[in-house]
């Protein structure tokens, strides 16, 4: 359970909560929290057909590693951290981001997982394009 076992990656394949849970499994963990961000079927009442995600992959993975390092500095009882972001075309209900944190106790795992997703949303260079029946739009400048 060293930092080297942590996982931070931008991937093109479907994300599986079971797989990521296995990646942060640790005999000293008493709690495991998983956050899954999924593709919603509407934005502001407008039906969404599907999403496309694009990343600055090298920088995104570097920022994910930074978040992992910050977590280990702030919550020393964390056992393992895994953060995966998917890119490409995603359908409604599919997971775009998965974060898993295992810790000796649940409080640390919940707090660290929340910190991880909130920080990811601020600093990791990933963009999404929403495809609607009648058009498409890059999310970001509209504040959405």
């Amino acid at each position, binding site marked *: 359970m060293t930092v080297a076992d942590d996982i931070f990656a931008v991937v093109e394949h479907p994300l599986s909560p079971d797989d990521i849970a296995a990646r942060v499994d640790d005999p000293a963990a008493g709690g495991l929290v998983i956050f899954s961000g999924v593709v919603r079927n509407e934005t502001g009442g407008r039906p969404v057909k599907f999403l496309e995600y694009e990343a600055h992959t090298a920088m995104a993975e570097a920022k994910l590693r930074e978040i992992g390092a910050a977590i280990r500095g702030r919550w020393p009882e964390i056992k393992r951290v895994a953060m995966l972001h998917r890119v490409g075309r995603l359908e409604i209900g599919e997971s775009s981001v998965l974060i898993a944190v295992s810790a000796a106790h649940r409080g640390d795992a919940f707090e660290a997982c929340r910190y991880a997703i909130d920080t990811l949303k601020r600093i990791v260079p990933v*963009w999404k394009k929403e495809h609607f029946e009648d058009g498409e739009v890059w*999310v970001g*400048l509209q504040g959405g």
Partner: protein
Amino acid sequence: MRVRVHLFARYREATGQGQVDLELPEGGTVETAWLAVVDRHPQLAQYRPYTLFAVGHDYVEPDHRLKPGDELSLFPPVSGGAS
């Protein structure tokens, strides 16, 4: 000095290019590079107030001084989302 600029998301689509190679004067800044890119692709000018800049894997400010061979990325705000 030669600097490679990478464009993402709407910037890539608006210009039809993922990267732009620039020849800038020594001591040029990120702002210098931005102006050179906008000179070639004026359709990006409207996005200036929202644009984020990164050199390598680190965010930088517009007055950041570039070095020969730097890889500069220009992109819109990250996708975010309501918490």
